[in-house]
């Protein structure tokens, strides 16, 4: 799976969780820029990402992420480890 495909999947989850189908999301998008992306929805987004990509995160990993691009990169690394 390419980084672009992962980012598309992540963006779809974010739009669904935040109930905002027209939200524009790129690698630089961060929670602080987006309405309703609070800590609770952040948790909902990350759990949905875990399920979609069959990966698991630690709280400390998630807390370090600054934007969508870093989340995509983290998913890429986890998928690479799984092989």
């Amino acid at each position, binding site marked *: 799976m390419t980084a672009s495909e992962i980012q598309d999947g992540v963006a779809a989850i974010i739009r669904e969780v935040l109930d905002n189908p027209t939200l524009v999301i790129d690698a630089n998008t961060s929670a602080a820029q987006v309405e309703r992306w*609070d*800590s*609770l929805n952040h948790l909902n987004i990350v*759990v949905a990402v875990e399920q979609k990509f069959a990966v698991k995160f630690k709280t400390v990993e998630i807390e370090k992420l600054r934007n969508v691009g870093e989340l995509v990169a983290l998913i890429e690394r986890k998928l690479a480890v799984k092989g």
Partner: protein
Amino acid sequence: MEDKPAVDLYLDLMKKVLTNNLFAREPDIENESELKFVQGFIKHYINGPAISMMPMARFDNLRSCIENVIADGVPGSLIETGVWRGGGTIFMRAILRAHGVTDRTVWVADSFEGLPTPDADKFPIEAEAHGKEVMRKTYNHFAVGIEEVQRNFAAFELLDDQVRFLKGWFKDTLPAAPTGPLAVMRLDGDYYQSTVDALSNLYERLSVGGYAIIDDYGEDIWTYCRRATDEFRQQHGIEEPMIRVDPMCYYWRRAR
């Protein structure tokens, strides 16, 4: 259908209602991912009708400890330090009621205004957790007023003179609390200092044969509860083994 005695039927029903497991299913602390568990924890307990956030395994442990001290004649009352909506202490009172025990008191100790702010220099991970948005906005630092807890007791017809409330910070309320001997002490104050304050003020009152239950002993991401417990046990020569209830909750039975 299994022919359960009325005591078991009553206490099993209480357990399921207090933990919101009558028509819902609690998050799986043993098998779910860390984040999935937190998501389920918020939905099931914080935003749900649960009156305790203990999983059912901890209720089974609590019941077992109390029934053992009753059966073995271990003298003393029961206390929980840190009660949230009161579910654990309501269950304590229900067990006494179910067994017709009238000479033991349930002590309900809490600030009733949430967790105290940890000292950031001494306890950095606790201070960091304390300041997070989810702790402030979603958990509200686990603050539940004493009136709400008393209403919860009353809803189960268990608010009577065998229930006593200790309102305030543990360091202020526990030293002079007129508990007398204790048979079960259940510590759920989360943080290092709350655990130390409870152990240092209450353990000397715990009867031989009584139980000390540490709800957050296994937590190491956001609290130093384990360190507080281990230091206290070492300083006081407590060698009774710590017994696992689930990944977070442990207890020991006082042998001497």
